[in-house]
């Protein structure tokens, strides 16, 4: 259908200020945080009411026009990348916290509310929303649900899927459904699990009920240095094996420590090959006991020095470097590319060493700052998009890292989603029957494939082409690889 017709239709039924169609107005929406992928949509719709969303969906459904939802656009896999023949549906104006129920420890919020705003509002009741992506100041809870976002504290408190209770969604034909319930479970299939992490392919979320947890009495961080990444990896495994589940357990390797240190004064030990930041939280009595145990485990694993945060200020200072990692990379290199594979923890050292080898092979520096406790790697490849061929080499290197994750029994994405970015690696992780099953699930929700088409699940055709290309270059190590 023509651009004009769809815009006319939208304008006929929605307020004028809710529909953007001039190129200069579309520009800010052309990409998410994976800026290497860009496209302009036919129009951007920024509704203010659920009824307006429903109208927009119905128009698109009738006219067979693709719809891509967008929260805050902080996604790192191109999930909110517009469709050049579709509309972009921004949920930005759905930014209200509808209700906080301190007795039942839940909050009902609109999808455009930022992650951090929920915890800020709940703080008055001594409660907070546990999943805390590093982007929490900006990212929307609707986007978190769509990606099943994680964060530093997910090791102990779980991912988005463990911390939400209900969704109100609109299907592509404008039908409103309640998924989950205000109780701990709902009758029928667990559609809450299915929708969480579905990357905007199944339905549009218009309201979320999140669970709130009591704020811990205290939190303290142990910062330990190691003279090899192997030793730090061992310390991670040993901590978990000792029966402790830290609130967070993060690793920075030498290049990352250096980069961060140039950016802000962290006080991180400069000579360390790796540092671990291990947060323990709970009651004071519990935390003190756990710190004692963690210190012992780290010493046994060969920690060269250890510091324990003495007060809240020092705890914040320990975390400051970790939190500044991304901006620090931005300072260090014109561009960086953040990967997101997860591996069984026991392979940490092996995989990190292999990543180093790949880094040398491709002549592209890599920094590692990541959620070590749950084996979720975030190798950051530093590159310069202005140098011809460098982006392509970066993507190729990234692909290799993801395939390595699959090879050791892991996954191509722990929390950032497949989006557009990892669509080819899906062909490595899943076989045709599995991918077809995913398409069949999609069919049950969105038979005309209008919601975020082309993302998250590759067509079998695409995989065949990717496979052929890969084998042609002789790159895929084990095309027959099983994940487990």
């Amino acid at each position, binding site marked *: 259908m023509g651009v004009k017709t769809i815009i006319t239709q939208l304008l006929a039924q929605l307020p004028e200020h809710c529909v953007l169609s001039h190129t200069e107005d579309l520009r800010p929406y052309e990409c998410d945080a994976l800026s290497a992928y860009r496209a302009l949509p036919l129009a951007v719709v920024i509704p203010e009411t659920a009824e307006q969303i429903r109208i927009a969906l119905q128009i698109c459904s009738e006219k067979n026009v693709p719809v891509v939802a967008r929260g805050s656009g902080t996604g790192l896999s191109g999930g909110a990348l517009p469709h050049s023949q579709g509309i972009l549906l921004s949920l930005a104006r759905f930014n209200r916290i509808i209700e906080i129920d301190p007795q039942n420890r839940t909050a009902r919020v609109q999808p455009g509310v930022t992650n951090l705003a929920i915890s800020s509002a709940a703080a008055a009741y001594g*409660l907070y929303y546990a999943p805390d992506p590093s982007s929490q100041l900006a990212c929307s809870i609707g986007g978190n649900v769509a990606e099943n976002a994680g964060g530093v504290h997910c090791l102990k408190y779980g991912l988005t899927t463990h911390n939400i209770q209900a969704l109100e969604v609109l299907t592509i034909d404008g039908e409103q459904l309640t998924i989950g319930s205000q*109780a701990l479970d709902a009758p029928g299939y667990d559609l809450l699990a299915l929708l969480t992490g579905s990357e905007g392919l199944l339905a549009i979320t218009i309201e979320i009920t999140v669970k709130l947890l*009591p704020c*811990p009495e205290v939190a303290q961080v142990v910062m330990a240095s190691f003279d090899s990444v192997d030793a730090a990896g061992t310390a991670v495994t040993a901590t978990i*094996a000792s029966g402790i589940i830290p609130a967070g357990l993060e690793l920075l390797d030498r290049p990352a420590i250096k980069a961060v240190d140039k950016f802000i004064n962290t006080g991180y030990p400069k000579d360390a090959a790796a540092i671990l930041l291990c947060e323990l939280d709970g009651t004071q009595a*519990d935390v003190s006991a756990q710190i004692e145990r963690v210190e012992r485990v780290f010493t046994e694993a060969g920690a060269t020095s250890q510091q324990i945060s003495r007060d809240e200020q020092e705890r914040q200072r320990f975390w400051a470097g970790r939190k500044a990692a991304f901006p620090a990379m931005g300072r260090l290199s014109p561009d960086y590319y953040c990967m997101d594979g997860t591996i069984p923890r026991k392979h940490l050292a092996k995989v990190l060493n292999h990543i180093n080898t790949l880094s040398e092979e491709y002549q592209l520096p890599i920094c590692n700052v990541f959620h070590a406790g749950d084996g979720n790697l975030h190798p950051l490849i530093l590159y310069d998009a202005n140098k011809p061929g460098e982006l392509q080499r970066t993507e190729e290197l990234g692909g290799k890292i993801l395939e390595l994750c699959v090879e050791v029994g892991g*996954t191509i994405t722990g929390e950032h989603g497949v989006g557009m970015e990892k669509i080819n690696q899906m062909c490595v992780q899943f076989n045709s029957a599995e991918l077809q*099953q995913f398409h*069949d699930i999609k069919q049950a929700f969105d038979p005309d494939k209008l919601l975020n088409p082309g993302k998250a699940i590759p067509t079998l055709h695409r995989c065949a082409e990717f496979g052929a290309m890969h084998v042609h270059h002789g790159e895929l190590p084990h095309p027959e690889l*099983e994940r487990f």
Partner: protein
Amino acid sequence: MTIQQDLQQQVQSAAASRSPLVICGGNSKSFYGRATSGDTLSLDGHQGIIDYTPSELVVSVRAGTLLSELQAELAKEAQMLPFEPPHFGETATLGGCIASGISGPRRPYTGAVRDFVLGVNCINGKGEYLRLGGQVMKNVAGYDLSRTLTGSLGTLAVLLDAHLKVLPRPPLETTLLQHCSAATAVELFNRWAGQPLPLSGACYLDGALYVRLSGMTEGVQAAVNTVGGEPLDNATQFWNQLREQQLPFFSGETPLWRLSVPAATPPLALDGAMLLDWGGAQRWLKTDLPADVVRHCVTAAGGHATLFRGGDRDSAVFQPLQPAMLALHQRLKHSLDPVGIFNPGRMYPDL
């Protein structure tokens, strides 16, 4: 031919002849759900732990493995299934545990069965072998179907293997008892849950409130002072009997309803005997009241009601779904089990 291939073949031929299959683990939960019939597809021979590295907090298990056997292996390493699943009989298997999705007293504080399912291998209604999810803590590749299969009562696929997250057993557990009204109990449950206390169980029965605290010695001792009450002897036995529905409350022939409601819901005005579990979020009701009376009251409170044991097993055992929701369920079922051979009607008449 491997057991997996054999099962695939059985599914394929059932699909070809459109003959229903009743998927069967240890038959310990055959009382649960609606009546169904068909040829038995037994997971009996598909047993054993595939992989267990305690430091990974992950265990991979075949569906026919006895729940008791798995738990004994985990206990050796001071670990546990955090959702404290009821067995309802010695023959309970892991497959049945996941398919029924029933969690025990720890559920509101550590999570439900689905929260710990990282991935499954299964056979869909076309007889295809599928690996869904994975064996790592964080994994967002593909739709999260393994959690969706959890609690689907075998109506979507045949569960072959599961990868589960496990947790360390808390070094210390203490149970405290105090006497109060049901209304006070609900209030206390939720006041405590809003504070950073190491809760791991909270129930109320016959005028007595039981609260379990689990964690490191220091933290539990501090919490004991906050919560108050008398220590309960034989606490392990008490929670086991609650979980397994072996307390005297559960005996007799009166239909047993499971009410799932927002935790802070005040005591419901329904005739019959009531036991509060999950800090108020799960309530057991023994009553002869008609289903619509029970459901009317529970729905008004924002919850749903299941006819858990007894009563008419051909009736709407689970809370009926709205038409649009039922239609979506049917399409979803169709996408995994196109001919409709798996446990037909076990969950809903048209599913």
